[in-house]
């Protein structure tokens, strides 16, 4: 007769233990995301109202961070010119994993109002994996906060896997970067 008080627990495999730790980690990660302070383009004007007391970002658990090595989110605010893209790829590769990218504005989607310009890239997805897009020109601060909440839901559903795709398709991303930029190395009088 089987006793009902004590049923022996089957031994869990290594993958299941990992998965449970990742779930706990995702819970803490999505409730305390830290954002890198980098104003790359014009949509960055809508960030100070989000960071300060007008539409407070800290009630979602987010805060600003100065160095890329300790930040979770890379916020691409607006269009990207060629010079900025080279430095952005440096910054993206310095962030530690798991890392997420949020693109503001309609310029990273398909070029926006600068689609026929000789100095602005048209589609950010070819160079860096993007998790959440926020459309608008320029998007309202409430839309930006909405984008952050969408990112948190995506982390909860385990679909924010941009950083894993970067490892899987590394050669494809590098080939696109070299085609458009020429070279990713920064050439000025310092980085010789």
């Amino acid at each position, binding site marked *: 007769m089987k006793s009902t008080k004590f049923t022996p627990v089957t031994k869990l495999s290594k993958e299941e233990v990992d998965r449970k730790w990742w779930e706990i980690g995702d819970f803490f990660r999505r409730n305390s995301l830290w954002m*890198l*302070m*980098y*104003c*790359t*383009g*014009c949509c960055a*004007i*809508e960030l*100070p*109202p989000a960071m*300060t*007391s*007008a539409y407070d970002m800290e009630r979602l658990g987010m805060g*600003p961070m*100065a160095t*890329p090595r300790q930040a979770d989110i890379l916020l691409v605010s607006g*269009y990207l*010119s060629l*010079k*900025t893209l080279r*430095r952005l790829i440096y*910054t993206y590769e310095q962030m530690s994993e798991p890392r997420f990218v949020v693109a503001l504005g309609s310029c990273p989607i398909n070029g926006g*109002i*600068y689609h*026929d*310009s*000789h*100095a*602005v890239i048209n589609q950010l997805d070819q160079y860096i994996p993007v998790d959440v897009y926020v459309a608008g*020109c*320029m998007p*309202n601060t409430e839309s930006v906060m909405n984008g952050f909440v969408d990112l948190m839901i995506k982390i909860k559903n385990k679909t924010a896997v941009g950083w894993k795709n970067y490892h899987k398709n590394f050669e494809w991303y590098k080939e696109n970067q070299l085609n458009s930029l020429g070279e990713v190395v920064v050439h*000025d*009088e*310092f980085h010789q």
Partner: protein
Amino acid sequence: MKQMKLFLGPQHPGMHGNASVHMFVDGDIIKKSYLLPGMLHRGFEKQMERKLWVQNISLIPRVCVPEPDINEMAFAQGVEKLLNLEVPERAHWIRMIILEMARISSHLMSYGGLGGPTGNYTIMYHAHADRNSMLDIFEKITGARVYHQYIVIGGVRQDLPKGIEKDLHEFMDSLESRIEEYRDLGVNNPSIIVRVKDTIMLPEEVVWELGVTGIGMRSAVNKPYDLRKVLPYARYDQVEFDVPVSDYSDARSRLDIKLKELIQSIRIIRQCFEKMPEGPVRVKPGRGQSMRWTVPKGYAYSPVESSRGEFGYYVVSNGGTHPYRVGVRGASYPQGLLGIEKYLPGTRIDDAALWVDTMGVCSPEIDR
């Protein structure tokens, strides 16, 4: 001693905008420095040649991001000079209200920008809360928070909505009653005085050598050299206001001048509401369909006084439906590029970020 290379790069919490300052330092003193612009370059001048005169309204505000109305004003004024067009009376007064509101929001943003270089973030919170209320008022008038596209060739796009006078007066009363608080937080704050007093002094010869305009010039030369008084455009000669100057040109007196200009802008807006007549607000610059409007041949330079200095557009027309060449004179071009190269060596590393903030270097204007 060996010199070390250092760059105050684009990704930095104290940097005002997306430009980097490259320095060779010896200990704490800068020996050689220059600014690296170009990270916000979009090719505006080339793109403006490919669009019609009317279509440029959507491209123009994006040249200078914190204060987009001066772009529209300078372009519209330049084209009206070529067309010899007379704008209706009410449109002049509405343009003045919009320009002064933009000046208030830009001064609030650069005063709050002290928080980054000095690490004193309380100022940023107060200033951006006020700026947010101003952006909400802009949304009621023009329909958008940041890029308004409201001042067009021939006047203003539509009339002011009802009830906007009450909102603006409420905002201005609350801001005026709190100017003393701003003064205590910034200019009279002992922990900021240490950084800001007697640093970044600008003598008079340097001003004429570099070509600096705006607050930097007025604090060094001690004369009211302001384009609104010297070459008045859009009915500035019918309102009374003062132009604050100072005789001691360090960073602290420049911040003081910014607060005084805020009070003068509030005074101008109040007088505009009293003196504004009724009437139409827009006149068409040509007959027929707007896609076929042409502008006669000519070369015109139209300057506007922005919160950072003299901001000008150079418009060249060939008699066709597209502009032939549009050139932009950014107000922070001399103080950003030349000032950092000639004037920053000899000061300390922490003064570099303060120069960028108090002299009002706005990087989208330099790169276009």
